[in-house]
Every structure is written in structure tokens, then in C-alpha cells.
């Protein structure tokens, strides 16, 4: 169930990411939904799930992007495992720690990703801090929102449906 959920999340993230990239190239560069899904899985289910999700999501992202397969997988695996380990060590059930984790994971992923590219393509390490910061903030926001939605969404829906039923009873 958990695996299926994670896979579905990753698939959804990929679809959204590619769709977003089709709509706006600039917008696509400001968020990494697959990374968000990986970090989410790591925070929610631990390091093993995080690293497996990172592996799957990264490889899929690499394959779809047409770049060197493995660089994104390596980076996201590292991120997923690291976030999972940190999430198990610290209390990250509040939005702020989660926000920090998402942002930090974005920086770690970008650093690792650029470093690998620098190694593979034998060019200098080039990391755009501003763009990375923006992506980190966006990713963190999306991630924290996702947590809020997943954790609070069912309750809200239940309360809303309960309120609707009461009103209908009053109405009739």
C-alpha cells in the first residue's frame, strides 16, 4: 500500500512536472515536484523508502529528461536517504522543520546534481544560488502544503461533508 502510494505520488509528480515544463519552462525550473515527492516519502516513511523513492524518481526523471541516467537518481537517492535519516533522528512533524528539510534537500540535491555534472562533463562546478534558493523555497512550500493537505485534507473533507449534511437536514 505504501509502495503503491509512493509510486503513485512519484508518477503524479512526474506528470505534473512535465506538464508544467510544457507550459512554462521558467516555471518548471522553479520547482522540482519529483524531489518534493521523494522528500515527502522520506519524511513520512523513513530512509529506506526515501532512498528507494529517490532512486525510482531520479532514474525516471533522468530517463524522461534525456540526460545521463543516474545523475538525478544518485542525487535524489542521496537526498531521500539523508532526509529519511534526519527525519528519523529529529522531530519534523511541524511545518517549519519540514520546510527546512525541503529547502535543505533542494540545496543538497542541486549541489550533488551539479557536482556530478561537473565531474561527468568535466566542467566547473556551477550552482546558481538564486535560482536554487527560489526552487528551495518553492519546493518547501509545495512539500509543506502537501503534508498539510495529506494530513489535514481528509479531516477538512469530513467536516465539510458533515456540515453539508446538517445544513440539508435543517433545510429540509
Amino acid at each position, binding site marked *: 500500500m505504501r509502495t503503491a502510494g509512493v509510486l503513485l505520488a512519484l508518477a503524479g509528480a512526474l506528470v505534473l512536472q512535465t506538464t508544467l515544463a510544457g507550459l512554462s519552462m521558467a516555471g518548471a525550473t522553479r520547482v522540482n515536484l519529483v524531489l518534493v515527492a521523494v522528500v515527502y516519502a522520506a519524511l513520512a516513511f523513513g530512509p529506506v523508502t526515501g532512498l528507494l523513492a529517490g532512486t525510482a524518481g531520479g532514474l525516471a526523471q533522468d530517463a524522461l529528461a534525456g540526460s545521463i541516467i543516474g545523475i538525478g537518481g544518485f542525487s535524489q537517492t542521496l537526498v531521500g536517504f539523508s532526509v529519511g535519516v534526519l527525519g528519523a533522528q529529529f522531530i519534523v512533524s511541524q511545518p517549519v522543520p519540514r520546510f527546512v528539510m525541503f529547502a535543505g534537500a533542494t540545496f543538497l540535491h542541486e549541489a550533488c546534481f551539479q557536482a556530478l555534472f561537473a565531474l*561527468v562533463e568535466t566542467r566547473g562546478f556551477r550552482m546558481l544560488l538564486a535560482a536554487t534558493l527560489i526552487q528551495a523555497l518553492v519546493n518547501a512550500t509545495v512539500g509543506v502544503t502537501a503534508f498539510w493537505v495529506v494530513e489535514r485534507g481528509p479531516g477538512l473533507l469530513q467536516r465539510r461533508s458533515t456540515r453539508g449534511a446538517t445544513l440539508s437536514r435543517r433545510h429540509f
Partner: protein
Amino acid sequence: MLDIRQRTGYLFLSVMVGHLILISAQVQSKTGVPVLEAVTFGTFARIQVAVAAVIDGVRNGWGNYVGLRGVRAENEALRRQVAELEVRLQEHRALAARSARLQELMDLRSRTTLPTVAAEVIAGNPNPGMLTVTIDRGAADGVQPNMAVIAPRGVVGRVIGPVAARAARVQLLVDRNAAAGALIERTRVGGMVVGTEDDDPPLLMELVSNLADVKAGDLVVSSGVDGIYPKGFAIGTVESSQEGPRLHRVIGLRPAVDFASLEEVLVVLVPARGATPMDGAPGGEGGQ
């Protein structure tokens, strides 16, 4: 059942290594060869180099060991061969020396009119008090007591009895009981040579007048007056000549024959009474 969650670190490392391999498989190196292939090739090349070095070492060690074993066996074989060859060489040298001596004997025999028979010294002196040797000729060969025994260089001694059928004993001239009639070749001064059994001098020439002209280096030959030794055969050379306290000089002689290396001799089958060696005989009188 192994729970993979308890092996998170190993799983993480495995996945990361897998990623690296995957990346390497797609990346070209500077030489155009995929990194994975280059790394794999380089790694295996190093392993192959190491393995080859080990194999070469083992092979060389084994080869050297076997080679050393072979060399050792060969060395032993060569040592045996060298020893055999040394023995053969010594045999050949001995044969050559013996041939030379026999040649000298043959020359001596051909130069003299005396009937002789060649004999080989087969034994030394059994009694320290007497200087004798045993030869392999005896009565069956016509050897009799008091026959002269000569060598290419000069007088050896005489046969003393008893004489066996195939062996005879020869008293050497250096024995203290031996004596021979002699004369100084240069001055024709006569005398008698006796043995001293001493090395300084081995022989003395007696009965030579103090007035006689005798010098060191003079050749002394047999005079034949003793009825044993044929005339004209070399006995030795004067080593020292001094006036004696009475009528006779004290003359020391150095024997012409090396008695220490006496191996082949000629036995004069008849007493040399009146016999004369042929011209050109070593130490002879030159036809006198």
C-alpha cells in the same frame, strides 16, 4: 528472512554504487571510451597486471627452482665428468711420461750393444736400512744376481740375490753397501763410487789421489773394472772435491739417476766386463 530495513546503510551504498556504475556506463572519457569501460578496463588491467606479476613470479620461481635443480644435477654430472677427465688426463700424462721413458729406454737399448731386458720397478724398499727396489723381471727373463741395472740417465745399481722367476731385487747405487768402479770422464782419473744413504752427498768417490785434478761439475762414469757395471755409463757429477786428510780426496757426487722417480730400467743380461756403450749414450764416454 532478512529485513532489508536493518541493512539500510548497505542498501544505500549499493544503490549509490549502482548509480555511479550507471552513470559511468554512459559517460565518455577523454579518450572517447565510456568511463565504465575505462574504469573497468583500468581496474581489470591493474588486476591483470598484478595477477600476471604473481604468475610470472611463481613461474620464474618455479622455473628457477627447477632450473636450479637441473643446474645442480648438471653440476654434479659435470663434476663427475671433470673428475673422470682429470683421472684420464693423469692416465694420459702417465702414459705419455711412461712412453717417453720407454722411448728413452729404447733409445738406450738401441745405442748399446749389450743385451738388455726392460724392467719395471714394481716395489720399493721394504727395509729402511737398505736402498733397494724390486723389478718385474727375474730368472725367467735371464736376470741373475750381480747384473747391472741401468737407466737412460745412468747407472742404477745391480741385481742382488735371490732372484725370483718374475722378479728381482736391485741394490741402488746410493745404498751404503753399494759400490762401483768409476772414473772422472774429463781427466780419466779412476776411483770407486760408494753410496752414503745420505742426501748430502748421496755418493762419494773414493780412492782418488789428492793430486788428481777433480773439479766440481766433472762427470763421473762407470769404469767397468768392477766386472758388474758396463764401462762408460754415467754415475753422477762431482758436487764437491776436497783434499782428504791422508792420500785421497773427499769427492761428493750427485747421482745422474733420480732414484726417487725410478720406474723403468734396463737390466744388462751379461756382466759388463769389457762391454762398451755405443757412441752418443747419455753420459757415456762418447765412444771411448
